[in-house]
């Protein structure tokens, strides 16, 4: 999908941190207004990515981190043997590319799941600016820490949890991410396919579909295509936390 020139221009112009609705969640979160314009100056605006278009590919040299303004992306890591593992989803206000800092290349390909706009933040500029602006540095650390924490949680999810727990946790996490951006935590649209969700959660796509319909039968959620309505959040949380039956192998 392409935008007419006028609309594209307005999308780019609108992309200023001072006016961006996500600034309270994004890197400039802690900055004073005058500092924010310094930060804004290092940002490169990019034209929207089309659905399926890669932001960068696995192994590309690391140059920038990206803040998602709208849309969503997935990170796919190939293991060389033809097995692609879906390793992350990125939603608006979230930072893409932090995992490329140390090895100076991106460890996975990041692909737009829908029409997506991102703000490119060249890392060398960000690095020097954060020396001047300790609040910015602090926010960068917090973002990285959060990503570490999320990864650990994902490891726990993948190493122990049953299919029901995995899917319930996934929906709760998504709901929480929408809530933090001021959207309804109960009603949202999945930009990813069932196959993507299965790949991310280590489940067969048949299992994902099966459990979604079971959750529907139990009136925990209502799913129509990619629209999700959480009908019973408390029950969903219980489903995510329920310990597997006592193990006596």
């Amino acid at each position, binding site marked *: 999908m392409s935008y007419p020139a006028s609309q594209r221009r307005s999308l780019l112009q609108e992309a200023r941190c001072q006016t961006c609705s996500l600034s309270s969640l994004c890197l400039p979160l802690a900055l004073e207004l005058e500092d924010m314009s310094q930060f804004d100056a290092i940002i490169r605006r990019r034209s929207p990515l089309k659905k399926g278009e890669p932001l960068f590919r696995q192994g590309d040299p690391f140059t920038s981190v990206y803040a998602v303004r709208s849309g969503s992306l997935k990170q796919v890591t190939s293991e060389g043997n033809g097995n692609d593992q879906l390793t992350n989803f990125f939603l608006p206000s979230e930072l893409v590319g932090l995992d490329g800092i140390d090895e100076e290349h991106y460890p996975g390909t990041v692909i737009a799941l829908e029409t997506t706009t991102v703000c490119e933040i060249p890392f060398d500029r960000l690095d020097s600016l954060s020396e001047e602006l300790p609040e910015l540095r602090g926010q960068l650390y917090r973002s990285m820490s959060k990503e570490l924490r999320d990864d650990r949680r994902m490891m726990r999810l993948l*190493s122990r949890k*049953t*299919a029901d727990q995995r899917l319930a946790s996934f929906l709760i996490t998504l709901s929480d991410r929408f809530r933090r951006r001021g959207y309804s935590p109960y009603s949202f649209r999945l930009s990813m396919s069932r196959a993507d969700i299965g790949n991310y959660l280590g489940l*067969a796509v048949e299992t994902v579909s099966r459990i979604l319909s079971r959750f529907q039968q139990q009136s925990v959620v209502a799913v129509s295509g990619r629209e999700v309505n959480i009908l019973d959040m408390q029950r969903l949380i219980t489903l995510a936390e329920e310990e597997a039956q006592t193990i006596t*192998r």
Partner: protein
Amino acid sequence: MPVHATAALAHPTLAAAEATAWDDALIRRYDTSGPRYTSYPTALSFHDQFHADDMSQALERSNASQKPLSLYVHVPFCRKICFYCACNKIATKNTALAEPYLSRLDREMVLTSRHLDTQRPVQQLHWGGGTPTFLTLDQMSDLIDRLDARFGLSSAPDRDYAVEIDPREADVFTLRHLQSLGFNRLSLGVQDLNLRVQTAINRVQPRVLTETLMEEAHRLGFRSLNLDLIYGLPFQTQQSFADTLHQIIELNPARLSVFNYAHMPTRFAPQRRINAADLPSAEEKLAMLHTTIEMLTQAGYVHIGMDHFARPDDSLAQAQRNGTLQRNFQGYSSHAQCDLIGLGVSAISRVDDVYAQNPTQLAHYEAALDEGRLATVKGLRLNKDDLIRREVIERLMCDMAIDLDAIGQRWEIDAADYFATALERLHTAEQDGLVTRQGLYFQATPIGRLLIRHLAMAFDTHLECQGSQRYSKIV
């Protein structure tokens, strides 16, 4: 009470000493053919004057007891034939073939559930084969939904929902899917870990496949995982089988079934692909059995009886200690006696006082259901004598002991008189050290435990008219 099992738990050294009380000559003398007593009377006593109506009447009678239900579903398809196999199966790679079969199963469920009080809980579910994992994940979901719609499946934590897995045809995704369908117990077919043996039986299955599934099953909370092994396969030696056992003990399954391969190429076509000259000798097989019992006992397993071993903390061993072990078509079970409904081609039901069997030919099974009737082709209604003897044989097979006084009281018979012929037969067994006797209480010795079928045969009155060559050898 099976006192020896308790002793084996409390004194592992004593158990090890018991296992060495081994007498080759004695075992060989008793190495005749005999039934496995997954039912009494055995399937050979079923007759063809038993019809679908007899089955539906039994289903209706059974509601009075309000016993829980146990459902067995036979999935006859296999992608590849293992040469040792004596099961009822169909070789195909086409999963679409399963669709019409699932429709027939559903019709059978509808016809069956009409006669049942479906408030009765489904405490046990078992998918066997063939290869249940031949089904696609969606077909498995479909089958579970149909079972649930017709009988109402349970989500109670004490349900026993088991499925047989071919590790070559399943991966961690399969296990996660099965878990989400409500299964909580698995049995994995291994048979042998030696590549030469695996090649000779047309079942090459690297150890890592089994190991990966066991780890995932553990993470997912599946319990009482069982591994199947077979001894007596081509190219096996005592040493090679000991090596397999050594690796299996490392994998530490909660349960182990170690079956004796019975080479009957005239009855089972796939076995004709096995060269009789490659089979281990009778001496070698006996040595393998000896090694098996010794190694597993050393490793802390309890010999439940027949081909079954379990860790002392497993529910099977616990049930045996509590005297609540049950025997059914799948071997032993820790769950209370249910009315068993067998669904699918060749499946056998045990309902109220009858056994009923479906045809072994897929075409016959399908034809019956297409005509809108249950597929029962054979069966038997047990008379009082059968019921009494069934109880004796079942307790003997499960407890490795039998209290005939208690049986006499329960059935209001003079046990010494009623079982006079059996007592006479047991006398020889007692002299040979297979069984000890105190009054009318008989207890199998460790050797007798191994030959328990032989002790049970003493009580079998159907045996004389059957001819023994249709049964496999005891050891």
